């Protein structure tokens, strides 16, 4: 086996953001399905939640490339 | 440990080397399998739409119905919904892109061809370069070079000293990250999908060559390969759609009056 443990760490670090993104989308779709007129209210919140979750995954990606 | 002793030989997992093909004739890499698949896709798409549109009638035949279905899907739900009133100019480009990517992706699960040519990074990069040139050209022609770059790089309503921090990020997003992610998304999906199918088919083949107990287990491996082929069909259609949709969104963003 060759390779670095950093890649394994990146794989592990994507689990949390993956679940988080799924939860954000699930809540967003649920909210729109129940109350379509609330879309304008929900959209910024969904964007913010997605950005916060995705930032963690991308920090993991950058660190996996840099840390040896 | 148990499986290692049971298996007759060492299992060699599929790797990136499985995506390299020897030239079919001659020495040049230009005559290898992916290039032929791309050429075949052009012939297939062209002949399908020529045949389906040749005997166009008011009451469409089944073939004409299929061709018009694909066209109206691209025109209405990608072109018109995203780009807006000026969409008709871009429909030929979007339609070509969609059918080309879709056909080349579907080669991944068609028996005997079984290689998505978009899993070689060169083809998605070439398509992303097309998109890149088109949406910047459209934006520059619509706004003028100075205003277009200014709109991208300098966001209004921000204190002046913050531009030092924000402008590199905005510039990189529009000129580097967007085309790079556009091509990488398609490439990575096709590469991973083909690798996944290879793991199960090669694994099943390897199990079939060993003891009787593992021969029975190989049924599950082949069954997984067949099931994942249907899954891959969905992914391939979705990636063709997303590629075209993002192209349309970038064109719409370049045409919009404010970003």
């Amino acid at each position: 086996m060759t390779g670095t443990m950093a890649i394994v760490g990146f794989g592990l670090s994507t689990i949390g953001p993956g679940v988080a993104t799924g939860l954000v989308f699930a809540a967003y779709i649920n909210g729109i399905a129940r109350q379509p007129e609330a879309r304008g209210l929900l959209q910024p919140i969904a964007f913010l939640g997605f950005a916060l979750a995705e930032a963690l995954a991308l920090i993991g990606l950058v660190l996996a490339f840099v840390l040896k | 440990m148990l499986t290692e002793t049971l298996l007759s030989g060492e299992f060699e997992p599929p790797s990136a080397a499985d995506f390299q093909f020897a030239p079919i004739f001659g020495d040049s890499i230009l005559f290898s399998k992916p290039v032929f698949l791309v050429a075949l896709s052009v012939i297939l798409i062209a002949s399908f739409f020529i045949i389906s549109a040749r005997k166009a009638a008011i009451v469409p035949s089944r073939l004409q119905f299929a061709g018009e279905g694909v066209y109206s899907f691209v025109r209405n739900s990608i072109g018109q919904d995203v780009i807006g009133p000026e969409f008709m100019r871009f429909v030929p480009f979007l339609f070509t892109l969609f059918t080309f990517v879709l056909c080349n992706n579907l080669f991944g699960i068609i028996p005997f061809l079984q290689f998505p040519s978009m899993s070689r990074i060169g083809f998605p990069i070439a398509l992303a370069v097309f998109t890149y040139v088109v949406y910047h050209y459209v934006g520059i022609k619509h706004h003028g070079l100075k205003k277009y770059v200014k709109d991208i790089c300098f966001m209004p309503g921000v204190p002046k000293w913050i531009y030092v921090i924000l402008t590199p990020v905005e510039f990189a997003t529009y000129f580097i990250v967007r085309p790079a992610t556009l091509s990488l998304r398609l490439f990575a999906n096709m590469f991973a999908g083909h690798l996944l199918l290879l793991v199960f088919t090669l694994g099943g083949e390897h199990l079939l060559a060993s003891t009787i107990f593992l021969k029975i287990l190989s049924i599950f491996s082949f069954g997984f390969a067949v099931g994942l082929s249907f899954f891959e069909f969905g992914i391939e259609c979705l990636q063709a759609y997303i590629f075209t949709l993002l192209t349309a969104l970038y064109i719409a963003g370049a045409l919009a009056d404010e970003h």
Partner: protein
Amino acid sequence: MAVHDEGAFWSIFGYLLSGLVIWGGIGHFVDRWMGTHLFFPGGLLLGISSSFYLIWMRFIKAK
């Protein structure tokens, strides 16, 4: 309208990625050049905060 949502989500992804890569990369090369270890984490923080600022201004405040 759902397609515009999807475009916005990919744009957010692009902003986050480019902020981290640009400022983290600058910090990384400054660290290599000066032989320090502080500029890379600082660059990452600056990058992520500038991305969040851009996302806030473009997608959340504008709504």
